[in-house]
C-alpha cells in the first residue's frame, strides 16, 4: 500500500507517518529511509532528535539521500518503508555538489522516475512531503524550480497512491482513498 502524506511544516506529519508505517508492517520489517545529508552540527542534532523519536518503533535505518531506488540494496522490498521526506530527496538531487550549489535541472524528472519505480517495487511505502505552495510571494527562478519540481513529485505520487492524507495540526484530512486500518 502506498500512502502519501502532505501538509504544512510542524503539523505532525512525521509522527503520524511513523505510526502508520509501523501499522502497515504488521509486525514485519520496517525501514526508515533517511534522506537528510548532514552539512553542519545543526543538521546532526536534528538527525539525533529524529533517531530518538523513532526509538522503540523497530525501524531499521537505511541511509539514502540520492538515487532513491538504491535503498533496496539494503532492504527487503516486502517490508514497510517510510520515506521522510520527498522534499529533502529533491533538494539533495537538485544540488548534488555542496561546494558549488549548482542546480541540476534534470533532478525533478529523475526523482519522479525513481520514486514511481520504488512505489511499484515495495509492499508498503509511506511518503512525506511538504506543502509549500500557498504564500503570497514572487520567488527567484531557482526557488520556483524547486517548488515546481516538488509539486511535480507530489502530484505524480498522489496520482498512483492508494491513500493521500493532508495533516493539519495533527488532524487528518483524507484527500484520496481510505485510512489504513
Amino acid at each position, binding site marked *: 500500500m502506498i500512502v*502519501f502524506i*502532505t501538509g*504544512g511544516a510542524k503539523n505532525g506529519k512525521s509522527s503520524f507517518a511513523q505510526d502508520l508505517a509501523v501499522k502497515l508492517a504488521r509486525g514485519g520489517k520496517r525501514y526508515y529511509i533517511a534522506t537528510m545529508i548532514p552539512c553542519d552540527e545543526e543538521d546532526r542534532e536534528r538527525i539525533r532528535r529524529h533517531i530518538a523519536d523513532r526509538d522503540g518503533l523497530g525501524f531499521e535505518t537505511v541511509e539514502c539521500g540520492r538515487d532513491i531506488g538504491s535503498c533496496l540494496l539494503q532492504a527487503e522490498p516486502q517490508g514497510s518503508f517510510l520515506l521522510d521526506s520527498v522534499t529533502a530527496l529533491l533538494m539533495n538531487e537538485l544540488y548534488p555538489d555542496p561546494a558549488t550549489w549548482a542546480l541540476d535541472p534534470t533532478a525533478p524528472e529523475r526523482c519522479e522516475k525513481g520514486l514511481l519505480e520504488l512505489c511499484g517495487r515495495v509492499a508498503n511505502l509511506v511518503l512525506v512531503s511538504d*506543502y*509549500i*505552495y*500557498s*504564500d*503570497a*510571494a*514572487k520567488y527567484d527562478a531557482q526557488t520556483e524550480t524547486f*517548488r*515546481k519540481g516538488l*509539486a*511535480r513529485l*507530489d*502530484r505524480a*505520487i*498522489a*496520482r498512483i497512491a492508494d491513500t*493521500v492524507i*493532508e495533516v493539519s495540526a495533527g488532524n487528518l484530512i483524507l*484527500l*484520496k482513498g481510505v485510512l489504513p486500518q
Partner: protein
Amino acid sequence: MNLIIGGAYQGKRDFARNTLNIPQGEMFTCTDETIDFSKACIDRLEDYVLACVQKGIDPLEQLKAQDLRDKTIICMDMFCGVVPIDAQMRLWRHSTGLVCQYLAKRADRVYRIVCGLEQRLK
C-alpha cells in the same frame, strides 16, 4: 460559476480542462489588468489582481461590474504564508483574498486542488 482555488503548481488548470471539460480555446490566462470576458474560463486571476494593484485599480469593483454566472475562475491560494514585507505585495494578497471571498460566495461550486486531487468545498 465555478471557482477553482489551490496553491501554486497543484493542477488547477488541468482540473478545469480534464474534469470540467473546458476547451483550450476557452481558457483566458491573465497577464495584466485586462480580462477577455468572452471566454468560459479565466485563469491566473491572481496575476490580474497584481496588475490592478500595481496600477491603482480596484479589482473587486471591476469584477462586480461583470456577469460571471457562467464562468469558471481559477485563482491561486496564496494565503498561508508570512505577511509580505512589501506594501504592494501585502495589498496584492489582501485584494486577492477579498476577490476570492466575493467569488466563492457567488459560486455554485468551489473546488480546492491539492497535489492534483480535488476537494469540493461548496
